[in-house]
């Protein structure tokens, strides 16, 4: 879930208008003057990215208005600018920004914390710029989520396959860990683990009577998968 916070209601309304996200489950947009960095939404374990938007009215000595990505906060904190963006950059000396950054940094890696500043009026163009940026955060986050789900499903299958063999060879806990490593490596490197097990069966090494025999089989399986059977 991408958490977007702004204390500026004008920015909040502009972003809401452009994204019409409200609360889609993937993105949570919270805006209001009273929002504090002490709020419990930072305790939410599902937060995958954090975006803080704030407003700086006017400019400092004629500086241009627009949307800026913050690259440094108070000379101490640095969001990691890995996400591609054409937004101009600037630093922030705002203590409030630092507070939100630190709260997010307690839970998130620095490349998943995004701080954007709107300097000058909150125009339609500013709203669109912010929305485009948020769109990239969402898109990149969706890809990551997809990869995480695939990995999680693969890990589940690895564990199940490992448990099955562990039972068959009366494995101890450390043997189970070893089997899981072998199953994982086989999957990644394209070795047919089931084929290897069938081979051991054809050679009369499986089934086994006890843990002692199971350990020998595990050793042989390790040799074959790890390439030391040269």
């Amino acid at each position, binding site marked *: 879930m991408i958490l977007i916070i702004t204390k500026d209601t004008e920015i909040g309304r502009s972003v809401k208008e452009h994204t019409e996200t409200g609360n889609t489950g993937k993105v949570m947009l919270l805006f209001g003057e009273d929002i504090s960095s002490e709020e419990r939404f930072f305790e939410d374990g599902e937060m995958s990215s954090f975006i803080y938007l704030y407003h700086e009215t006017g400019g400092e000595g004629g500086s241009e208005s627009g949307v800026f990505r913050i*690259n*440094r906060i108070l*000379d*101490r*904190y*640095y969001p*990691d*600018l*890995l*996400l*591609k*963006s054409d937004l101009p*950059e600037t*630093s922030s000396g705002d203590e409030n920004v630092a507070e939100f950054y630190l709260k997010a*940094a307690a839970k*998130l*890696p*620095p*490349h998943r914390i995004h701080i954007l500043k709107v300097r000058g009026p909150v125009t339609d163009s500013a709203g669109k710029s912010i929305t485009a940026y948020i769109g*990239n955060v969402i*898109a*990149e986050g969706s*890809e*990551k989520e997809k*990869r995480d789900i695939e*990995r999680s499903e693969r890990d589940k299958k690895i564990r199940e396959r490992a448990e099955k063999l562990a039972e068959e060879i009366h494995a101890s806990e450390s043997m189970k860990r*070893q089997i899981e*490593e*072998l199953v*994982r*490596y086989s999957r*990644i*490197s394209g070795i047919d683990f089931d084929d290897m097990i069938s081979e051991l069966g054809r050679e009369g090494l499986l089934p086994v009577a006890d843990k002692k025999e199971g350990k020998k089989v595990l050793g042989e399986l*390790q*040799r074959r*998968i*790890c*390439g*030391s059977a*040269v």
Partner: protein
Amino acid sequence: MENCKEGYAEAPFKHIYIEDDIDVGNLKAVERFRDAGIIRIKHYKDLFNRQRQSFVGQKASPNLIIARKHGKLIYEGSPVCQDFGNKHFYYTSCVMNCLYDCEYCYLRGMYPSANPTIFVNLEDIFDELDGLLKKHPVYLCVSYDTDLMAFEDLTGYVEKWCDFTASREDLTIEIRTKCARKDLWDRLTSCERVIFAYTISPQEIITKYEKGTPSLLMRAEAASVAMEHFPVRLCFDPMIFIKDWKDIYGKMFDEITEIIDIDRIKDFSVGSFRISSGFLKNMRRMMPDSEIAQYPFELMDGFYQYPKELADGMENYMSGLIREKKVDSEIFRP
């Protein structure tokens, strides 16, 4: 940004982080990346040591850090690293991290950040080294945590190290590299005590695991030119297990011996992949889909390595190939 498609990853070196007290003018890196945004920082560790950084994401979108290194600048060589028979073995890091992206690199497990960090106070390293040289001769590896040759246009450090070493009789240095540049030799001060050590891998390993590095052919050609100017060491280290490894490493050796006159090589380093348990743990967490990181290594004395039978097999085979070509070759193994 981890494993990010090119569409989302920021361009490399879009930002250069520079410590406050460093003068931007005359910095080669700033000249080279004119369009990069300069961000001033108080201390490089504020950036380098941030928690939970994405090493993989930063490899796709590296930013440069320019800083001064403080405290101890020269370290005693690790017992698991090759000392090539030298009693007083040390290493130093005037640059942290590498331009290349090798999947098996221990830097992935060691550093919290992949951002290349250039330390500008090379003179302080030289001063500390002079202090050591007053006590005893020194063998110093200067390109361990980086590839200094690959960074030469941004630092000029290979040239400086050659000059420095040439003027210090009791100093021998090793510059480890995968870089295939052939244009630097004429401008480097020639010195018998500057050893260029080329990491040599089969093209199959290079293609699969050594992202961004020059091809085997290019490295062999570079080594061949280098030996006209400096002693050259060939490092078949780390040897990486791959299906049909014997054929692949054998073919590699045939290919390079067509280009490199093995008889003129100073010495050889041969070693199969090995890594500290702490580093491997980090690498496995960072690269759940990596064939290299997820290999079921065996743990021995705090280090993970291939099963002994396999490791010995690989190293013996490689050493055998070398000895066949050059009977009296000096081969250093772990």
